[in-house]
């Protein structure tokens, strides 16, 4: 007789327990946005119908959703890795700018075959992202400066510096738009529609999405199954115990920030090598910040982050269509995101880390 796989009772309680704050927060957000839509004088059900149809109406639509979700998976994972170590990396935005610029710089300078150029671009981007994040990590480990203010300051600096480089140094000649020249064709990442005929040729979903899924799987493996992942979590949960156990908390802090920055930089690579093929000044609409929401909604679990990112991707796509069709401002999405974070943080999510938020 075949055994039916089943959850044990404690497991079911655990899942239900984890789901409650999320369901509650989502409920509040739905009520609140319905109210706003109602006040704007729109039919609430019609708005939700268009929202859902726009995101999941066809395979092509869903391709767009996954396309939107890709950078959020990277930044969400980056924030999650930080949280697990008790670090709040608000600097993903800066790190993805640093990474994106490094990738584009390599991409338009070296005319190498794809097999060399693509790894080289990735290497440059991840090094830049890790290096940018390492500054905040070192300042924390060496001097005890809380990473929150430093990472925010470095976001401003990264955006200003790349803006300088794009507009003053590498601006494409004869162009009004502040962007760099295109990267070489060999550095373009292929679109999924090239392999799967079901997606239309114009669908921008690219292989970075597959990489994002691989990144989530690797993060989970790294955190749960490797010694470094264990040390990282121990530093986050109980730094004193970690020190007692012979772990150098400072070193783990710096490495974690670097890992987090490297993952965040891939969101920049997604834009530069997978979508625009060049670096546009100020290209990110806040992927780094939405990543924080994705990490919180995904309850700091790599798989949860993927689901949350897809939800945000769907909201983003749906909000755009609702804006165009019914004139409900898509900025509502920003408010939803913020309210979601406040609710999730308020209903006592069990933090993976006991050290978060004590020293600013």
């Amino acid at each position, binding site marked *: 007789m075949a055994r039916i796989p089943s959850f044990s009772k404690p497991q079911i309680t655990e899942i239900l327990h984890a789901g409650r704050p999320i369901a509650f927060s989502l409920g509040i957000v739905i009520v609140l946005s319905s109210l706003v839509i109602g006040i704007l004088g729109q039919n609430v059900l019609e708005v939700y119908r268009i929202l859902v149809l726009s995101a999941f109406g066809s395979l092509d639509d869903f391709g767009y959703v996954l396309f939107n979700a890709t950078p959020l998976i990277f930044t969400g994972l980056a924030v999650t890795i930080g949280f697990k170590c008790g670090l709040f990396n608000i600097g993903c935005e800066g790190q993805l700018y640093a990474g994106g610029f490094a990738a584009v710089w390599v991409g338009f300078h070296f005319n190498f075959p794809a097999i060399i150029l693509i790894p080289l671009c990735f290497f440059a981007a991840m090094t830049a992202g890790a290096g940018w994040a390492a500054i905040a990590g070192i300042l924390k480990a060496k001097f005890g400066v809380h990473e*929150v203010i430093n990472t*925010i300051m470095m976001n401003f600096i990264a955006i200003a*510096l790349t803006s300088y480089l794009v507009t*003053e140094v590498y601006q494409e000649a004869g162009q009004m738009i502040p962007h760099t020249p295109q990267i070489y064709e060999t550095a373009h990442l292929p679109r999924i529609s090239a392999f799967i005929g079901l997606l239309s040729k114009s669908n921008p979903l690219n292989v970075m999405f597959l990489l994002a899924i691989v990144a989530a799987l690797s993060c989970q493996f790294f955190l749960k199954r490797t010694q470094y992942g264990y040390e990282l979590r121990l530093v986050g949960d109980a730094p004193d115990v970690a020190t007692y156990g012979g772990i150098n908390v400072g070193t783990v802090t710096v490495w974690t920030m670097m890992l987090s920055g490297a993952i965040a930089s891939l969101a920049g690579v997604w834009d530069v090598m997978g979508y625009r093929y060049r670096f546009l000044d100020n290209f990110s609409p806040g992927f780094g910040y939405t990543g924080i929401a994705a990490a919180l909604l995904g309850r700091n679990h790599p798989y949860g982050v993927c689901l949350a990112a897809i939800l945000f991707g769907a909201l983003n796509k749906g909000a755009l269509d609702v804006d165009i069709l019914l004139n409900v401002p898509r900025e509502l999405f920003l408010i939803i995101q913020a309210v979601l*974070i406040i609710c999730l943080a308020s209903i006592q999510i069990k933090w993976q880390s006991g050290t*978060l938020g004590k020293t600013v």
Partner: protein
Amino acid sequence: MYSFPHNPTVVLLYKVELRASGIGTEVLTIIFELIPRTIRMSTPLVLAGLGGVYSERSGVVNIALEGIMLISAFGYVIGTSASGSAWAGLVIGIGFGTAIALVHAIASISFRADQIVSGVAINFLAIGITEFLNRKATSPRVEGLTQWNLPLIGSYSCLVYLTLLLMVGSHVFLFKTPWGLRLRAAGESTEALNMLGLSRARWQYIGVMASGVLAGLGGCFLASEAHYFTKGITAGRGYVALAAVIFGNWTPYKTAAACLLFGFANALQLESRWQIPSQLLQCLPYLLTMVVLVGVIGKSKPPASLGK
């Protein structure tokens, strides 16, 4: 973004320079132009910084200063353009700031949410609300607050003078009155107030709401000087003010002094005589913030129960 009416001292110096056009006078001119600029740039920082002192002294980390300033700047502009009076705008701006500070207070005090996460979310909320309500790049032009012109000192917004009063008043309130003692006790110990039969949560609410009013004033000042609202008008000033609070060891006077330093860095940004690209000058206050924090950590002592 700002208009800088000439300081009488500067005008005088220009006249002197016409006669003795030496390099020395040119340096003096730059200095005398930079001083009023520094004062104008520091004022919103000082206001937000004072707000930060109240909130953090009561034990609540307030990274939401940025969002409070942003939404108040917005409130000032819509209030002024709707009513035609800058004073009404000021009241509405402060109202907006206090309202969003209340959300932070409810989340982090009553619901015991992580204060940093809640603060960051408040900042997103402020961005979301302002962009939702104002979808254009800039708002229509509105009038600013009354400028008071004093002989030899120059012409400044009345808020500049109010800020000085608030700075002194905050010092007196926090360190010379029993209420100030209670507010500080809320930040030093989780138990002390409750043992006295007083509510710790109430004093924390007062601290956060005070930061809403003060950072709100700061936001109104920004909008009043710029005469309109733009996306990103605060440009990280709330975070810089928070760094000034740490640098200023959580005291009003030292925080204000730190804000003057950051305000000076902001003022240099508008210096067009040097051939330095604007984006690089923009980084100056942020870099300075990071450097200052490294130098000060360990020497400045946060309230014992901050964040708990």
